[in-house]
């Protein structure tokens, strides 16, 4: 399957379009309404972080299939990438309540809990790429 959505995030509207695209894809993939909300919320968090801390970047949402595991799994993958300032203290930002902007600091640790898989790569001065997957059950 090659269906995917790419959303540029450089205004607040990008945040809204990204999460709406995510919800639609999640619905089409067969996720229930709780997981749809989880996926849309995770996208909203990642998109807002791009807007707030990197000014611009991109959210890619796509269907994935894991054919290697004994029971083949399908799901939705979110990739959030930017060429912003990057994160040097990844361990800190994954703590509940850590924020540099007066937010709740719930975003990144929240995304990790909302999704099934979470991966973050970031180099200070170069940018950030975060990947998160939710599997259909």
């Amino acid at each position, binding site marked *: 399957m090659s269906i995917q959505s790419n959303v540029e995030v450089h205004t607040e509207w990008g945040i809204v379009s990204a999460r709406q695209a995510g919800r639609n894809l999640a619905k089409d993939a067969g996720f229930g309404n*709780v997981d749809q909300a989880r996926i849309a919320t995770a996208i909203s968090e990642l998109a807002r972080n791009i807007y707030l801390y990197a000014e611009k970047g991109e959210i890619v949402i796509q269907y994935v299939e894991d054919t290697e595991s004994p*029971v*083949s799994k399908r799901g939705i993958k979110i990739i959030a990438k930017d060429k912003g300032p990057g994160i040097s203290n990844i361990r800190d930002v994954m703590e509940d309540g850590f924020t540099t902007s007066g937010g709740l600091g719930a975003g990144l640790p929240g995304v990790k809990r909302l999704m099934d898989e979470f991966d973050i790569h970031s180099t200070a001065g170069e940018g950030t790429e975060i990947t998160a997957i939710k599997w259909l*059950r």
Partner: protein
Amino acid sequence: MQPSIVEMIYTQKQDIISDWLSEINNVMPSGLAKKIPNEASDETNKKFVELIIESLELTEEAATEKLNEFAQHLIYLGWPLSYFTQGMQAFRRVLLETMSSMESISSKKVFETFYEIETWVDSIINQIADEYSGSWESTIHLQRMALKELSAPLIPVFEKVSVMPLVGTIDTERAKLIMENVLDGIIEHRSQVVLIDITGVPVVDTMVAHHLIQTAEAIRLVGAECILVGIRPEIAQTIVNLGIDLSKFRTKSSLRRGVETGLELTQRKIIKIENDDERIDSR
């Protein structure tokens, strides 16, 4: 498939079938052979091999439909997927042996058609495997639905007051289902108070407590209130010994006390009817 091969298969049909039948009896999974009476398995084997040969002259669609129907039937009867895969492999062996033993077919020709037969056999195997995995998925789905119903019946005992009896071990997966069912139930019954009864929960460790606390928080967010009831003495001991903080919970020792509190919270109470004459006798 090349017409000459199809023709060959048809003219040799009887031999192929009998060769295949003796072959399949050798490869039949031994567990299966024991379970299924001989006549039944002989019949199924015959049907299977005839179907394979028949599928050669059907359109792809019609062949798919027939094969799926047959596979569905065997899935229903509990035959394993290995019967099909080994059956198809046996068929390929028999076919190639038959061809190479025939004078009229050159070995070059056998070699040329080898690939074609390979593809054909593989596509049938794949198709049947798909059918099987589809039905596994739906079995898993059914089990999940059954679990969902089993794990979380929110019972509306009074207007605005519901009870959620928890029975058995609570793992993360089940805790999620319970939470979803409680919340949906609250909306459906417009419950203002939910009593979570843990009388039937054998162990309350930190993980179970964590799930209970999260459920209570979610209940509050949708606009209802939660009371934890049915805390047995040994559970109270472990909770305190583990240092679990349930102070945010309203708790009551028994379901009855909980119901009373629930009614109080919704400005009602149970009263005893004093006048004997008005009492409705149950007999």
